[in-house]
Structure formats: C-alpha cells, structure tokens
C-alpha cells in the first residue's frame, strides 16, 4: 500500500516509471499487453508491405520500401525489448501471438492489392499510427516512452515518403495510375480512421489508461485531428475521400465525418477480415519453419561456451 501510494504520487506528478521501480500488477499487465500488441503489429505489418518488395516499380521505390520494412523490424525489436523490461520474454509474447491470444493492429488484416497501397499505407496508416503514438512518447513508463520517440521519428519519415509516392503518381502519372491511387484511398480510408479505436463512450479501458498516463489523448480527439489533417492532404493530392458526409464545420472548426461502420471493425477484429487467417498463418509458418535454425544456433552457442571458457 505504501508502494502503491508512492507509485500514484509519481504518476500524478508526471514522473516516469523505470523498469526497476515498483508498479502495480495491473499497470504492468496493461503495459505488456499494449507494448506487445504494438510490437506484433510491427512484424505482422511487414507482411502486407513485404508483399510488394518484389514488384516495386522502380529501384528507388524498391530501396525505400526495403528500408521501411527494415525499420519496422527494428521497431519490433525495440518494443519487444521494452516489453521484456516488464518481465515477459519475446518468446512468450510470440507464443501469445501465434496462439491467437495476443492481438495486432487490425489494419493489417486488409490486403495490399496494388502498388498505390504502399503509398496509401504510408500516408494514412502510418499517419494514423503517428497520431496514436506521439502522445505515447510522454507515456509514464519510461522504456516504452523512449522506444516511441525513436519510432515516431522514423514513422513520420515513412509517412512523408508514402505521401510523396502518391503525389508523384497523381501529378506525373497516367490516368490509370491516378485511378489506382483513388482506388487505394477508397479501400484504406475507413480502416485507417478506425485505427483510433471505438468512440470514447464505448472505450472501456481508456479511463484507467488515461489515469495511469499510458494513454494521454482520447480516441475521438485523435481521430478528429487525423481527419482534419488528412482532408487537406487529400485536396493537395487530388483524391476524394470516400465519405460523402465530410464537410467543414465552421462552428467546431473541424471536419464533420459520416458514421463509421463499427460492425465492420468488430467483425475484422473478431477474425473475419480478408486476411486474418493468412497473416497469422504466415507468422506461425515462419516461426515453425525457422525452428530448426533457432535450435541450431542455440546448440552451436552451447558447444562454443565451454571452448571459450577454456580459451
């Protein structure tokens, strides 16, 4: 109880919690869940983008895409490391992913069908991710906050590159290419604005997370901020966002948007999206097919250890 009080005081004072400090079990569990979910999203997110490495239309774009997926792998590494400071190993976290217990961002259950999806994911999906993540740079748990600072910096770079790729196609491309961009935006818009999670009045865990300083800004607030930015960017780009109800509300000084189909969100979250099975199956397969490699590395390390002691 003393510890709990001390913890609460630190949180209230806006201080950071370090790995070695005491923390309530629920706080720890909430963080492990959130950080690992974020880590899983990075590595599952490599799949839809990896899908286009072999087909990138220019070498410059191929290089940019390779660098991006490599960054995402790196983000996965930092985040697993941050989660490990809370006492759960990467293998345990992966086990939870593979068994379907742990979640990853539902956005990656949508397929990447054209090259324009690469740019659109950069613009909208990474854009939404950044909106979500920037506040976490001030998260009360310091190792997570530190990882997020670095991740956010790289993500904004990816977002700009994605947007720039779309701009090139829209401004210098053919009609067919512009249609490809518009099609991609049509498919990714709604899933992107669902990335902020359910409306505030239906988001049960938010209050406690806000209280603990894990979450800093509400879902709806972030969503609005994202939409306001995206509408302007869409205009510059010359694409239409697939929401006929989008209009400027001079009173609120925000863009009003149409109703979000939350049943679709729940359906995909529950496993009935276009790619849920394939994404998870791909990860499970990679892990299973790589088992012999990991075992060999371990066996080799074990054989080396005594030799090195002798040397």
């Amino acid at each position: 109880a003393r510890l709990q009080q001390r913890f609460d005081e630190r949180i209230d004072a806006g201080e950071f919690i370090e790995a070695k400090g005491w923390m309530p079990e629920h706080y720890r569990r909430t963080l492990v869940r959130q950080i690992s979910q974020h880590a899983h999203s990075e590595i599952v997110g490599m799949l839809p983008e990896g899908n286009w490495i072999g087909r990138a239309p220019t070498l410059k774009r191929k290089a940019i895409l390779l660098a991006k997926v490599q960054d995402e792998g790196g983000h996965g590494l930092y985040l697993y490391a941050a989660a490990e400071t809370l006492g759960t190993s990467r293998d345990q976290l992966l086990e939870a992913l593979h068994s379907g217990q742990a979640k990853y961002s539902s956005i990656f259950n949508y397929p990447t069908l054209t090259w324009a999806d690469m740019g659109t994911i950069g613009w909208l999906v990474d854009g939404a991710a950044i909106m979500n993540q920037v506040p976490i740079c001030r998260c009360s748990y310091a190792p997570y906050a530190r990882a997020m600072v670095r991740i956010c910096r790289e993500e904004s770079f990816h977002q700009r590159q994605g947007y720039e790729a779309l701009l090139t196609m829209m401004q210098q491309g053919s009609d067919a290419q512009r249609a490809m961009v518009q099609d991609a935006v049509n498919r990714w818009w709604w899933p992107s604005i669902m990335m902020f999670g359910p409306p505030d009045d239906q988001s049960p865990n938010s209050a406690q997370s806000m209280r603990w300083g894990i979450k800093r800004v509400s879902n709806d607030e972030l969503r609005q901020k994202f939409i306001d930015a995206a509408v302007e960017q869409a205009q510059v780009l010359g694409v239409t966002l697939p929401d006929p109800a989008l209009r400027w509300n001079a009173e609120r000084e925000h863009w009003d948007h149409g109703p979000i189909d939350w049943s679709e969100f729940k359906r995909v979250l529950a496993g009935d999206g276009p790619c849920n099975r394939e994404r998870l199956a791909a990860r499970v397969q990679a892990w299973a097919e790589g088992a012999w490699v990991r075992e060999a590395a371990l066996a080799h390390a074990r054989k080396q250890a005594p030799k090195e002691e002798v040397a």
Partner: protein
Amino acid sequence: MTQSIELRRDPAVQYLLRIADTTLILAQRLGEWCGHAPILEEDIALTNMALDLVGQSRALLTRAGELEGRGHDEDQLAFLRDERDYFNLTLVELPRGDFAFTVLRNLFVAGWARLLWERLCDSGDIEVAAIAGKAVKEVRYHQQHAIDWVVRLADGTDESRHRIEAALAQAWRYTPELFESDAVDEHARQAGLGPRRADLREPWLAEMAAVFAEAGLALPATGGYTSTGSRGVHSEHMGYLLAEMQYLQRAYPGGAW
C-alpha cells in the same frame, strides 16, 4: 509502344551488367524473406542486405547506361530488358530455398563479390572505383554474416547439418560460372575496367576452404556442368522472377512512380 529496350552490345556494358544484375537478382531473392525469416533479427539482416544490393545495382546500372550511350536509366535497364539481356550469375536466380540455402548462397556470392569489388576499387573507370569503394564495405558484412551462419548451421544440430549439406550439394554445381572468363572478361582486364572472373578463382577457393574447414564440411567435387546466366541463357526460374519484378513497368508503360 514501350516494349523491351534494345541493348547495345558492348563488352564494357555487359561486364558491368553482369555485376549489377547479380546484385539485383540476389536482392530480389533476399527480399522474399521479409516477414518470413526464422528470427526477427534475420528479417532485418536479410532486408538490409537486399537494400545494400539494390543500391549497388542502381549505381552500376546507371554507369552501364552511361557507357551504353543510349540514354537508358537504371529503371529502364532494371525493368525493361528481355530475359536474354540479363547477365546475372545463374546461382542468384535460383529460388529462395530454405535458410541454409540462403546463407550458403550468400557465402558463395558475397565471397565472390568481395574479391571483385576489392579489385574494382582500382578500376580505370573512376565511377566504378567509387562504387566499389562503398560496396566493398557492405559486402564484407554480408560475407561475415554468411560465414557465421554456415559455421553455426554446420555445427548446430543433425538437422541443420543435413540441411547445409543438402544446400551445398545443390548450390555447388552453379559455382563454376563464377570463374568462367570469356571475351567480355578479357576486354575488361585489358581496358583496365576490372578483373577477369577467372582471376578470382584461387583466392575464392582458398577462402571457401578455410570456411569449410571451420565448418567441418567437405568441399564437393566439381562436376561437368557450367551454368550460363552471365551469357544471358538462364534457368527456368528466371522467367518467373522477371514476370513478377517487371510487372508494373510492363502493365503501366511510361508511368511515373
């Protein structure tokens, strides 16, 4: 009508394309691991290598295009040639295979490429020399990564040893091509552009022998087959690889990306 580009037949151009295509096609194969590697660190390492290789290829393709003198840029050269005009080593176009095959192929190709890049640092073509200066550092890392894994897998478990041996049996028969020299190589040597492939053979074999000794693997005998990708006659795998790699450029001719 944007059909395939017509390549000017020139030994210096072909010499550079052999290297540029070898790095490009290997990058294509390594990129297939993205999201599917045995551990996250390897997802990162393999995509990182692919990135290095694409960079090397871009620089060399650009230089080859300049020497060719028909205004072909890196993308026209990368995406709009007919299969017969790609000159990569056959070894790099073989399917991704398992992780053992991947690291063993990397061992062979990176070892070869390092020796080549080292010599190209002294190329009479200063652009090529500059490219080589950067590439040699990258490929040293690729080679070390491959050596570490080959040794680890050979020493690890029964299964990993069995797999590295199977990979060796498969990959070794494509290695004679790495050291075959023809008029293109001769021309490069005489023009001071770079070494003949044959000149790399002895040091490469010596390095491989050292790695194999450390790994406890027997060097296989060399058979009677020499693959011919570097002369533009590829394996059946190449067509599928190109169909995928070139698809967007073919389906949206003249597009801006």
